[in-house]
C-alpha cells in the first residue's frame, strides 16, 4: 500500500480501483494511474496528507486514500 512506504521510497502503482470515484478521477487528471511510478516525498504530521511525486509533478493526497492504493516497491 502506498500509505505504508517510507519517505524517499519509489514504487509502481498496481491498482487504484478501490479509491472513491471522485478522488480517482482527480488522480487520473493528474496522470496517476495503474503503471505510474511514484516517489514518496513526505508525510505531514498528525496523520495529515502525504506528498508524492510522479514525472516531476508533486501531488498531495490524504492518507485514507493512500492506503487504498496498491503498489509494488521498486
Amino acid at each position, binding site marked *: 500500500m502506498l500509505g505504508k512506504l517510507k519517505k524517499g521510497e519509489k514504487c509502481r502503482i498496481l491498482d487504484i480501483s478501490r479509491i472513491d470515484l471522485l478522488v480517482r478521477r*482527480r488522480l487520473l487528471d*493528474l496522470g496517476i494511474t495503474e503503471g505510474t511510478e511514484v516517489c514518496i516525498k513526505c508525510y505531514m504530521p498528525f496523520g495529515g496528507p502525504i506528498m508524492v511525486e510522479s514525472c*516531476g509533478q508533486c501531488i498531495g493526497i490524504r492518507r485514507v486514500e493512500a492506503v487504498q492504493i496498491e503498489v509494488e516497491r521498486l
Partner: protein
Amino acid sequence: MDIALIGNPNTGKTSLFNNLTGSYEYVGNWSGVTVEKKVGQFKNKKDKLIDLPGIYSLNPLSKDEGVVTQFLLSEHVDKMINILDASQLERNLHLTIQLLEYGKPVVIGLNMVDVALKRGLQIEPNHLSNQIGIPLTPVIARTGKGCDLLAEAVTSERMSEPNARIVNYGIEIEEAILRFEQLLDNKSSRSARWLALQMFEGNQYVKKYVKNYIESEKLDQFLVEIKDTVKRSTGVSIDQFIFQKRKETIDQIMADAYIKREQIKTPLSEKIDAIVTNKILGLPIFFLLMYLMFMLTFDWLGFPLSDLLDAFITGTLSNTIENLLNAAGASAFIHSLILDGIVAGVGGVLVFVPQIFILFFFISLLEDSGYMARVALVMDRLMEAVGLNGKAFIPMMIGFGCNVPGIMAARTIETPKERLLTILLTPLMSCSARLPVYALFVGAFFVQQKAFIVLSLYILGIVVALVLAKLFSSTILKGETSFFVIELPPYRLPQFQALWRSTWDKGKGFVKKAGTFIFAGSVFIWLLSYIGPGGTDVALDDSYLAAIGGFIAPLFEPIGFNTWQAGASLITGFLAKEAIISTMNIIYFAPDEASLQGLLSDYFTPLAGYSFMVFILLYIPCLATVATIYKETGSKKWTAFSMGYALIIAYLLALIIYQGGRLLGFM
C-alpha cells in the same frame, strides 16, 4: 473571430493571455487563479481572445471547471489555442484529444519549454506537431518569447479542421457513436462524436445539453446499453476504457515524437519542499512567514509610511485646499463640505493605502511563488478535523486581502458542502478594509503592542471560522464525504513586474472605492451631520446622524460603546468597512488621525476599544461581499444566514470580552 484559450491549470494561460492581448489579468502559481472567463482583444484589434479557468478534462469536477464545459456548449467559438505544459506533456494531451474531438480548429502553444529543458526533456516541435496533426508553436508565456508567432498562427485565415478521430475507441464505442449521430439527427451544432464521448465518460453538463434534443428516456436507455456492452466485453467501466484508449494514443505520440529524456539532479523546487513541507518545520515556517508579513505591514514598514502620508494629507494638502477655497471665496457650506466632509472622509481612508499595498504585495508573493498550494497541504489535517479540506484555506488567505475574490476562489473546491462552508466562513477573515479601523484604534489605545493586538484580531477571525466550521459541519451541513487531492506546482521565482501588477490590481480597487463609494458616502454622511430636525448647520448632537445612530446605540451598551457615534459608524460599515473610519473622521471633526485618536479616548475605554474592534471584525460581511455570497450560492437563505450568524457571534464575543474584561479588572 472568437478564440478560446484552454489548458490545464497553471500552464501559463493567463500569462499568455496578457501577452497576446496586452492586458493585465491576475497571474498566480496555484490551480484556480482564474475562475471566470475573461475576454480580451488581440493586438490586431480584430479577434477576441477568451481566457478560461484551467481544466484537466472537459468532464468537470468543480464549479470553475464547469465554466469551460458550459462555455463550449453554449457559446460561439471559432478557434482554440490549447496551451500545453511541455514538462507535463502526457497529462496535458488528454485534454488536447478532447479538444480535437470537439471539432473546431486548434493551435497548440507549447509553453514552459524552459522548464522542460531544465528537467532534461528535449522536445522537437515539428515532430510533435506532425504526430498530433495540428500546428504547434513553442512559447515562453512568461517572457513573451514566441507569442507573436503563435498569434500569427492562430489568427491566420487558412486553417484545416483537426483530426477528430485521432483516437480509435474500438468497434463497440465507434458504433455507438454512429448510432448516437442518428439519434441526434443534426439537431445540435456541436460535434456528435464529441457529445457522445463526453456523455460516455459521464459528463453531466453535456448530458443535460443533449436532453434538449433527445428524449430523456431514450437517451438514458441508450447510455445504459453502451455502458453494459463495454463492461461485458472489456471488463472495465466505459470511462476507464476511454481513458485507456486515449492513453495508448498519447504513449504512441510520445514515442514517435522523439522526446529525449535525461536524468538530472534533484530540482531546486524539491529541495525547497524538503524544508517548507517538512514534518516538523512546516507549520512553524508558515506561522513565521505570517508573523513577518504582519510585522512589516503594521509595524516596521507600514505604520511609518502611513504616518508620512497622513502628515501630507492633513498638512500640505488640506492647507492648499483651504487657501484655494479662501481665494475662490467659497461659502461656509462649501468650505465645510470639502474640508470636513470629503477631505476628512476620503483622506482618512487613503492614509492606509501604504499598509494595504504591503499586505497585497505579500499575498501576491505567496500566490505567485507556489507556496499557496503548500499551505493548503500543510493545513489539510487541521481543516479536515473541522469538516473542511486544505483547499479551503486558500480562499481564506485571499480573503485577508479582500473577501470578494476569496469567496470566488472557493469555486475550486470540488464538494458542494465544503464549498458552501468556505463561502460562509471566508467573511470572518479580516480583510484589508478592516485594517484602517484597527490601525486607528491601536494607535489610540495600544501604542506599545500595536502589531500584537492586530495579530490577535486576525487569529481570532481564523479561530472563530474553524470553530464555526466544526459546528456547522456537524449540524446543519452534515453528510457528504470530504475530498482532497491537490496539485503542488513547482516553485517559480516571481517576476517583479508580475508581482507589482497583481499588487496594483488588488490595491487599485481600494483606491477606486475611496474615490467613488467612500467619496459619495462621505458627502452623504457629512450632510446628515450638517442638517437635523432643527434645520441646517445644527450642532452635531442635534443632527439626523445623531438621531439615527442614537436609535440603535443603546443596543451596544452591554458591549461597551453606547454612543450614537459608534452606532452611526456601524451602519455605514455595512456599506464598506473603511467607511467606519470616514464616518468617525467626519463625526469627531478631527483634522488628522492623531487628534482623532486623542478624541477617541473620550468616548472609548481601551477595553471598549478592543471590544469594538472585535465587533467590527465579525459583525457583518460588507455589501459587496453579501452580493458575492448571493451570486455564488444562488440562495437567499444562505445569504441571510451569513449575515445573521455573523451578527450573533460578534455580539456574543464582544459581550464576553467586554464583560469578562471588566470582571478581570481591565478598563
